[in-house]
């Protein structure tokens, strides 16, 4: 019965695998300094941006793709990727209202459950919709601006708020950070930008929805969120892509900056196309660098992620705890099934005094999947009185799945405290039989166990996304658990 249940979960069809027929403006495949200049000129960027890109590109050329992650894939041909693809209509001329968005794009996002039109259902959430290389729409922009909150595409921010971009872009993840961050810094095409001014609590959830549509196109976007003193924002991110036989690269950079007493909550529900369930062909390579900087005292950055898609996930949302008493959190559920591979975890770097961090990681591995937790907790000498608590649990389904844990702990003072807990368990036939004997279907029984396993993380998700995450994991509990 265990096997049957695994098959049911594993073979659930990917419902976002459709492709939108829309005319796109693309640049030819390949990557050179010319490509970088072309992207910058297509976006009519100011000089400082081109300079940043070129520096990044030249640095990237000196770097080698990292090989330390416990994942395997054939070499990526960086000359075989389209680095810029945008829906033709009104790509760079900004829309006056949501209704002007290409109806085909509107329909696409509607099908994905992301309404671009500011309607009632998701009235509490502002959306920046990114389609391939560009932001096609941002809702509630004006309304937010009334509160002094800037929420727009990265391209617009470069044009309208160059000082802020200049000051913070690359301040958390420098282009020298790693191979994929350097690549992103050279060729990124768009992304979301968000600025919360002093003493402001953002009145609604902000979100970015990423959609890759063009075959052969990579998506390289940047997100930059700045929370000034005593302000607060909750940010959500969702991602899907059509079903293609070829692998596609998604190399994003997310930078968060929290000043004194500021709080940023960043949630992700990642459901990129994972590849064909029975052959493993296709799927997204999700190689992402996410990092938050708690610059101010008593600031807090919290990452919550539910990773269910992608052929390969390589990401470690991290926190630099610089301000005294700052707090970093990481809550993660990573589900891998079939041929999926994930090497994911978090990095907490304690620099300020009395800083605190929490890592809760739940890995679920089914089929032939390979699920790795990789974490690093570093407590510097300066970080007196700091604390970390790490818990990483793995749940195995079926006999061919794998889970590994690679924690690194480095404590350089004697007044700090670090705790690490880990567990590995398997959904047993006995558990399933017990639930089935009570009239609960295999599917619901699995769902109940998985939901129970992930509860600590789901609890951290904002309402709307908690629902989506639950559905994503195939949990048809009808609200019975949790």
């Amino acid at each position, binding site marked *: 019965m265990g096997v049957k249940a695994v098959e049911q979960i594993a073979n659930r069809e990917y419902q976002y695998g459709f492709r939108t027929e829309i005319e796109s403006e693309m640049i030819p495949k390949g990557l050179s300094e010319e490509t970088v200049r072309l992207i910058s000129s297509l976006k009519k960027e100011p000089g400082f941006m081109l300079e940043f890109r070129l520096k990044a590109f030249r640095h990237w050329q000196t770097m080698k793709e990292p090989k330390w992650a416990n994942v395997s894939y054939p070499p990526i041909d960086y000359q075989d990727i389209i680095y810029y693809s945008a829906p033709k209509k009104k790509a760079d001329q900004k829309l006056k209202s949501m209704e002007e968005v290409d109806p085909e794009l509107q329909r696409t996002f509607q099908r994905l459950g992301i309404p671009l039109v500011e309607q009632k259902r998701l009235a509490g959430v502002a959306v920046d919709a990114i389609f391939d290389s560009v932001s096609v729409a941002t809702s509630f922009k004006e309304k937010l601006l009334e509160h002094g909150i800037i929420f727009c595409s990265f391209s617009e921010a470069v044009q309208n708020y160059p000082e802020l971009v200049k000051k913070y872009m690359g301040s958390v993840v420098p282009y020298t950070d790693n191979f994929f961050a350097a690549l992103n810094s050279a060729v990124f095409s768009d992304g979301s930008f968000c600025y919360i001014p002093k003493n402001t609590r953002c009145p609604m959830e902000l979100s970015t929805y990423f959609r890759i549509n063009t075959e052969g196109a990579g998506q390289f976007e940047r997100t930059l969120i700045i929370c000034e003193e005593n302000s607060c924002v909750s940010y959500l991110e969702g991602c899907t892509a059509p079903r293609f036989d070829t692998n596609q690269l998604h190399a994003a950079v997310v930078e968060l900056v929290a000043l004194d007493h500021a709080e940023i909550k960043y949630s992700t529900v990642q459901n990129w196309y994972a590849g064909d369930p029975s052959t493993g062909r296709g799927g997204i390579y999700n190689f992402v660098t996410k990092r938050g900087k708690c610059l101010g005292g008593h600031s807090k950055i919290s990452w919550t992620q539910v990773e269910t898609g992608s052929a390969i996930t390589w990401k470690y949302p991290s926190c630099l705890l610089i301000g005294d008493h700052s707090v970093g959190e990481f809550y993660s559920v990573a589900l891998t099934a079939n041929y999926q591979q994930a090497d994911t975890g978090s990095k907490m770097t304690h620099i300020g005094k009395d800083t605190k961090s929490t890592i809760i990681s739940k890995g679920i591995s089914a089929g032939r999947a390979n699920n790795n937790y990789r974490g690093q907790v570093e407590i510097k000498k300066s970080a007196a009185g700091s604390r970390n608590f790490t818990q990483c649990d793995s749940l195995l389904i079926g006999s061919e799945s794998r889970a590994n844990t690679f924690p690194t702990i480095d404590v350089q003072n004697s007044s700090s405290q670090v705790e690490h807990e880990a567990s590995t368990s398997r959904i047993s036939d006995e*558990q399933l*039989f017990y*639930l089935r004997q*009570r009239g609960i*279907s295999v599917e619901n029984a699995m769902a*109940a166990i998985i939901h129970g396993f992930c509860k600590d993380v789901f609890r951290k998700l904002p309402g709307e996304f908690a629902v989506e995450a639950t559905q994503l994991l195939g949990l048809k509990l*009808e609200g019975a658990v*949790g």
Partner: protein
Amino acid sequence: MLVIRDLHAGIDGKEILKGFDVEVKAGEVHAVMGPNGSGKSTLAKVLAGDEHFQVTKGEVLFRGNNLLEMEPEDRALMGVFLAFQYPVEIPGVNNASFLRMAYNARRKAAGKEEADPLEFDDILKEKLKLVEMDEDFVNRSVNQGFSGGEKKRNEILQMAVLDPTLAILDETDSGLDIDALRVVARGINRLIRPDNAIVLITHYQRILGYITPHFVHILADGRIIRSGGKDLAVELEKKGYEKIREETGA
């Protein structure tokens, strides 16, 4: 209600039940007694549909349906309930939510409306009283960290909530101290009705002092070697399995 004819079943190619026959009617309580390894638990697992066990021969009819062809959950939805000898721990799954899930699965199968959490809370409170259990019991994860006695009582609570047509109690009395045994037996007695039936699998006569069976069957080496009324259990207690076996020539 339940007819078992010439049932042969085993595990890993080893035959354990070797021609088991019984007929259970509505309103009856049957006690199945036997020494270790006689096939008591195999019987319980086979009736509930545990796929680790293979049925090699015979038939089981429950309310006219071929039980052996049905999935475990479908048997449960038709009213077959097994109180496990070793209830399974399910970390992270809240006991009350689990009970509601199971309750609603049955309601749904019966074409009735499902209970919302508030309605179910009332139902649950009433059932808790019936089995004399504390309310904080249901706010823990299913069986996790429960004592042996608590696990058994949780089985009876589930039985009370699901209101089965046929309840198979697999050594529900084992591992209970005398007070817990009394509570569990009282709970079971309250659940006996003219329209349901109970198969009480037990090693000892002890629980039969609290629950009076209509029939007692003595199982040895995969077969019933003797059936009788409630007095048979008393006789068995006096003589022991070995003596009875000799007498019956089994």
